[in-house]
């Protein structure tokens, strides 16, 4: 008898997570409403929401600080595009190198020290060097993110390929799969769940790192907005920029998590 094939209905967001978020906003509102902290230190949620709506799609206020006329959205688009480009490059490079290192001992001996050294580099300390090497173009931020992302993806891909049951590889070979098919149909598909875990971790860390790297001379971006508004002591806009970036980060995580869940739906547990 087949075990049940009922798929578990899944919500994209955990209801408990939403409750936690609402509790945090309530705490924020309470602290600002009863003046436990000054408005400068903690602007009220309503003021932050108003700053977001007034400056989202266009903002002459932000344009005064050479942050373009596209408002928060324009700066968000810059930040998002850097994060996405860096992650895409890191996925291709990290997975390829990770798989190669898991299967070829010689390559692993060569690549592991390099990747592990890259992983131990204090990214924030090295950031000024990227500014020197790449100038104030977006290449500096993307290169910094790749350095961070590729190490994580590499390690997850390596572990996933090394942990894959060799029976699957042997089965593929005896069924007539050549080396390319073994990589695409066995290693890649079998390793996807672990690789996806690495990609999500890399993405989660990339938002904050991108915002930080923009402080070092990027033409625009949410990090630059935060920097400019902090210099003006406009904490309401600083919070507005942080909140929009946080919402984008959560939305990306939910969307990617949902996509990854769908792609690896073969591993969901059946209800017994």
């Amino acid at each position, binding site marked *: *008898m*087949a*075990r*049940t*094939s009922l798929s578990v209905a899944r919500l994209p967001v955990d209801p408990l997570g939403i409750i936690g978020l609402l509790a945090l906003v309530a705490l924020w509102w309470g602290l600002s409403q009863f003046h436990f902290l000054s408005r400068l230190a903690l602007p009220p949620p309503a003021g932050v929401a108003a700053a977001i709506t007034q400056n989202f799609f266009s903002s002459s206020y932000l344009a005064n600080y050479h942050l373009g006329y596209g408002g928060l959205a324009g700066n968000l688009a810059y930040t998002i595009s850097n994060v996405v480009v860096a992650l895409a490059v890191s996925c291709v490079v990290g997975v390829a190198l990770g798989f190669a290192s898991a299967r070829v001992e010689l390559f692993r001996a060569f690549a592991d020290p390099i990747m592990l050294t890259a992983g131990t580099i204090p990214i924030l300390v090295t950031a000024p060097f990227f500014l020197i090497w790449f100038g104030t173009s977006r290449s500096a931020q993307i290169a910094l993110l790749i350095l961070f992302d590729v190490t994580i993806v590499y390690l997850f891909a390596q572990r996933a390929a090394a942990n894959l*049951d060799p*029976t*699957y590889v*042997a*089965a*593929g*070979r*005896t*069924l*007539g*799969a*050549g080396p390319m*098919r073994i990589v695409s*149909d*066995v290693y890649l*598909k*079998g390793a*996807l769940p672990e690789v996806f875990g690495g990609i999500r971790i890399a993405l989660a860390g990339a938002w904050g790192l991108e915002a930080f790297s923009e402080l070092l001379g990027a033409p625009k971006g949410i990090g630059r907005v935060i920097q400019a508004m902090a210099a003006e002591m406009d904490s309401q806009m600083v919070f507005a920029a942080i909140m929009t970036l946080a919402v984008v980060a959560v939305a990306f995580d939910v969307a990617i998590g949902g996509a990854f869940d769908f792609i*690896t*739906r*073969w*591993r*969901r*547990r*059946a209800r017994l």
Partner: protein
Amino acid sequence: MAEVELRNVGQSFRRSGGALVEAVADVSLVIRSHEFVCLIGPSGCGKTTLLQLVAGLTRASQGQISVDGAAIAGPSPERGLVFQRDSVFPWMRTIDNVSYGLKCRGVEKTKRIEIARQYLRQVGLGDVERSWPRELSGGMLKRVAVATVFANSPRVLLMDEPFAALDYVTKLQLHQLLLTLWEQHRPTVLFVTHDVDEAMLLADRIVVMKEGRVVDDRKITLARRRTVESLALPEAVAHKEVLLRHLGLGELVQDRTAPL
């Protein structure tokens, strides 16, 4: 069909301590076309290593293995292998697993799905072709593995203790299924087992290995399909007693048994 010949085959490896271990030593064996040979022996006697050599998954240290006179050079879909462990890809639906070998050989999609469906029906799984492997029981997964290998039309079928982890009833059902498929397609079979009853039920010949060497090679001439009654005939009992003594279970055998 396909005659498998092993000539002075040996396989040795070094343990981490440096000691040389001969897993298979000077094995010479001819398995005739359509023959169903069971390879039996105690754990660690080299039977799985020998099967891996015939599959081409491992290269022999010494000797030569050939199929119809052609030396083997690596794995081939002509030599299908059913593993002891689960080898059904969990990331492919049942039908995609069964048709995977055909896909590798370039059979066009409509044709390979048709063939896969035919084999799934034959193994009694026609209604779960869209299921994921995680939704199937251990016995069903073995049926999928058997259907996958037969769908690829191998000339030689290699089986490495395929039913060892299954419950008694499922194992007996799968024996009957395997015999049905073998009678229809008649591949040459090399079946590794440590189960004397399984070997007596299935084999034309039983080859016994001990410490990497072939120590007995017995032809089983009992009529097929074998039943509880035919397996209780004096000839069958005599074979079983000798095999049990080979496996170090002589205390289960009465003194009247034939000598080894």
